[in-house]
């Protein structure tokens, strides 16, 4: 089984649009949407969902005011500054609580308990060219990295059962826990960038992350003609780093039109220059290993 992660560091470079296009170009495959904070791939692939599973993102501590003796031990012990003393009572901030349970364990009055955070879920389904696993993090929840791990694991298991040889992973932005979870154990990182100072900066950071995992990288410059000078700098950097630059996708109205129709550009405008370039990228990834 071969796992390919599409990742960029910077958001909005076109990870999802490219993932969707590659997913619809022939050959049954598994697609895993690992941007659980802002999952969008289902908008283009329109999967028919077969099963939906709840996911607990952890738990938060709460203080029973009836039992609290106001000793303050919890506040002294909390390293997340989640416990506040205000108007003669101790309270725990939902957003700051990390769910470590230390306060619950040290409370001499047993006044602290944990409440599970529910509302997040993951889903498996089929789309026009294979299978898909995607997820949704409930607003304001933590642990998106853990949910990414679940999506990865489920997509692996399902691929084995279905005899699928490729998993295409649409990654999240950044270089922190969800990005690490999306990237670990993959066989190839397809780094999507755009020709801007920030796109280039973030490309270098995400390349460092891939190197840390020992994963080979290839680069695609999306919207390369928005600034050909920066695109040329990125190309030069790829040469000096010996990373194959496997595609330059032009900025075209057809790409946006396709998204508005909830279609991929290869389906909506197969003769466009962007679709042609993506077809070439597809060949390089899937026909040469």
């Amino acid at each position, binding site marked *: 089984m071969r796992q390919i992660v599409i990742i960029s*560091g*910077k*958001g*909005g*470079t076109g990870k*999802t649009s490219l993932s969707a296009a590659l997913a619809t170009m022939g050959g049954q495959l598994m697609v895993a949407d690992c941007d659980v*904070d*802002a999952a*969008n791939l289902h*908008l283009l692939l329109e999967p028919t969902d077969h099963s939906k599973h709840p996911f607990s993102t*952890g738990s938060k501590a709460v203080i029973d005011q009836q039992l609290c003796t106001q000793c303050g031990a919890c506040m002294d*012990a909390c*390293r*997340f500054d989640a416990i506040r003393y205000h108007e003669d009572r101790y309270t725990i901030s939902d*957003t*700051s609580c*990390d*769910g*470590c*349970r*230390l306060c619950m*364990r*040290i409370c001499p009055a047993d006044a602290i308990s944990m409440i599970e955070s529910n509302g997040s879920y993951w889903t498996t389904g089929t789309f026009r060219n294979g299978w898909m696993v995607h997820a949704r*993090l409930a*607003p*304001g*929840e*933590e*642990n*998106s*990295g853990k949910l990414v791990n679940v999506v990865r694991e489920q997509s692996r298991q399902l691929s084995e059962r279905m005899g699928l040889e490729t998993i295409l992973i649409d990654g*999240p*932005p*950044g*270089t*922190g*826990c*969800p*990005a*690490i979870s999306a990237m670990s154990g993959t066989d190839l990182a397809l780094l999507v960038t*755009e*020709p*801007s*100072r*920030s*796109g280039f*900066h*973030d490309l270098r*950071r995400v390349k*460092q*992350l891939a190197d*840390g995992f020992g994963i080979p990288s290839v680069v695609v410059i999306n919207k390369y003609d*928005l*600034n050909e*000078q*920066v695109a040329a700098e990125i190309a030069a950097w790829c040469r000096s780093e010996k990373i194959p630059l496997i595609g330059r996708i032009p900025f075209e109205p057809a790409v*946006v039109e396709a*998204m*508005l129709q*909830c279609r991929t550009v290869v389906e909506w405008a197969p003769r466009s220059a962007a679709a042609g370039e993506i077809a070439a990228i597809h060949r390089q990834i899937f026909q040469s290993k």
Partner: protein
Amino acid sequence: MKIAIASGKGGTGKTFVSTNLFWVAAQQGADCVLADCDAEEPNVAEFLAGEEDRVEEVYQLVPVIDPGKCTFCGKCYEYCTYNAILYLPERKMIQVLPDLCHDCGACSYACQAGAITEHPKLLGRVKQTTYAASQQIIEGRAEVGVYSPVPVITKTIHQTGERELVFLDSPPGISCPFIATVDRADYVVLVTEPTPFGLHDLQLSAATVRQLGKPFGVVVNRAGLGNNEIYQWLEQESIPLLLKIPFDREVARIYAEGGLPAAVDDSYREMFSRLLTLIVKQRIS
């Protein structure tokens, strides 16, 4: 007043709006600071430079277990909520997995044998630069491969102090890094684009900001490139539309090279001055 510039989806133009807003405020002589809270991918420095004053390192404490003193009672393992302790009692093996550790202190509390000591691990850096006399830029930058940028973000916001205007350029998403930033703001500007992706993510981020009880408004970037669904939704939800920034290839080119449209084009300067006035007004009402 702290203003967070945020979005669920990445690449909608958070840094674009933050840097231009800060530039306009700085031109007006405001006592202001721009804090780059996207510590996983900080980009403000690609657009605005200042004189570096001070760099502070951010650490977390990671426990180390001395196998000589450890009695293999397993209590630290039991207390760790993050599965960060590898414990194989039959093989007399115990070890901390630093990448999974959240620095909560539960294992140190649990250990009765004095076998656990805590050692600092570098998470990132907070850099303060002076932009002009009463204006500052602060950047939070996490080390690549660090699990959570939240301690770096917290430190970054802490250093903004009590300025008249604090702009927080937020990380994308709706989970911990986003919350750590937006929860400390008085007003939130959600930046989006008029596409199905933009609308879908705006709905999620609006729900999150509402849950936090923060007043917010929306800036639609690259207006004219997509469709009108987003405007209908904003009206339906009675969410203020603060500004529409038209898609302009020339502006995209200037910005791609690290230039600020507000600094080179009068119409953009006016646009962002209007936005700033509107945000301050929204906050007061």
